[in-house]
């Protein structure tokens, strides 16, 4: 799917087709990018905004969708002082256009040809590239066992809640465990708290299954989880990480 010919990666124009709210302060943008070469699950794009005076701001965003012609979906979390995110989440409307470069990133990608079980651990918007992997798994009809552990503040901030429930029911072989760090839903069996070694053991794969592990989210979250996985016996080269920077 991804074009491997010797062609220089350059900026393209993306047009917003549709926008959908996600969680509390985030949004999915459905984009049309003509001549999009396709992308692998877990890859990302760089987005560049240019003001009238020529000032540019650029940020990276993970692709949320499975490859689908010229359509690319991003899920963007708004940050209080975010130059690019405040535009994408608060202002951009269908018809608006901005520059986009990609797909990039061959390290943090899942290969559907790999039969290893997969452990996905996402914190906050770190779920986005993992969701691309889950969506590609379904699109390919893959039987590879997937376990997702998703840490989020509270039920209101969770991304794709309905879709995750539906996929656990329909996709066969996908398990999802939610970890709420600040507030839990009514009747939740545990008080709020951070993802810990016990949850990784209960909701993850044993190290001797040699799963492919993908950990994504704020830098602090990724550091803790990656260390816990290695301490639990997972080989470091089986733990792929993508850090989004400080939480706030």
């Amino acid at each position: 799917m991804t074009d491997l010919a010797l062609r220089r990666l350059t900026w393209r124009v993306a047009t917003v087709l549709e926008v959908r709210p996600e969680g509390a302060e985030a949004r999915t943008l459905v984009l049309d990018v003509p001549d999009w070469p396709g992308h692998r699950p877990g890859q990302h794009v760089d987005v560049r905004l240019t003001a009238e005076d020529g000032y540019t701001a650029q940020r990276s965003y993970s692709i949320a969708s499975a490859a689908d012609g010229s359509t690319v979906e991003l899920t963007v979390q708004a940050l209080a002082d975010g130059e690019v995110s405040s535009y994408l989440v608060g202002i951009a409307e269908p018809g608006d256009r901005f520059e986009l470069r990609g797909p990039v990133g061959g390290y943090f990608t899942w290969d559907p040809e790999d039969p290893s079980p997969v452990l996905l651990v996402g914190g906050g918007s770190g779920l986005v590239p993992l969701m691309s992997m889950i969506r590609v798994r379904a699109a390919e009809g893959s039987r590879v066992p997937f376990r997702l552990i998703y840490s989020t503040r509270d039920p209101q901030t969770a991304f794709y809640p309905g879709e995750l429930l539906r996929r656990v029911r329909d996709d066969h072989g996908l398990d999802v465990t939610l970890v709420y760090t600040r507030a839990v839903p009514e009747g939740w069996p545990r008080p709020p708290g951070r993802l810990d070694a016990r949850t990784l053991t209960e909701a993850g794969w044993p190290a001797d299954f040699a799963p492919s592990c993908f950990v994504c989210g704020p830098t602090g979250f990724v550091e803790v989880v990656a260390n816990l996985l290695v301490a639990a016996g997972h080989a470091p080269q089986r733990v792929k990480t993508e850090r989004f920077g400080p939480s706030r």
Partner: protein
Amino acid sequence: MGMAGATGSSRDSADMAFVDGNELAGALGEIFAVDVTVARGRCAGCGRESAVAETVVYSRSPGLVARCPGCESVLLRVVRGRDRAWLDLRGVTCVEFSLPDTE
């Protein structure tokens, strides 16, 4: 990649204000014909070999600076101008690229 929501207090300290070499994929993707994030480089400081994606990257300074995850010395710097880019690789002694004969 984007910037994520809060997950707790003590993980948000200033010493977590870095990302990793995945951030370089776009800038280096304009220069190299192959994906560089999976390329492995050897640190000129301590000799540690890491994938570019595993390096410690600070994007506050002009351009992007990637540091060795072991010893923190600078591995590479990339700055993008209007119609040119500057790449400083003095911090790596060798970079290994995967170039399969067929795809």
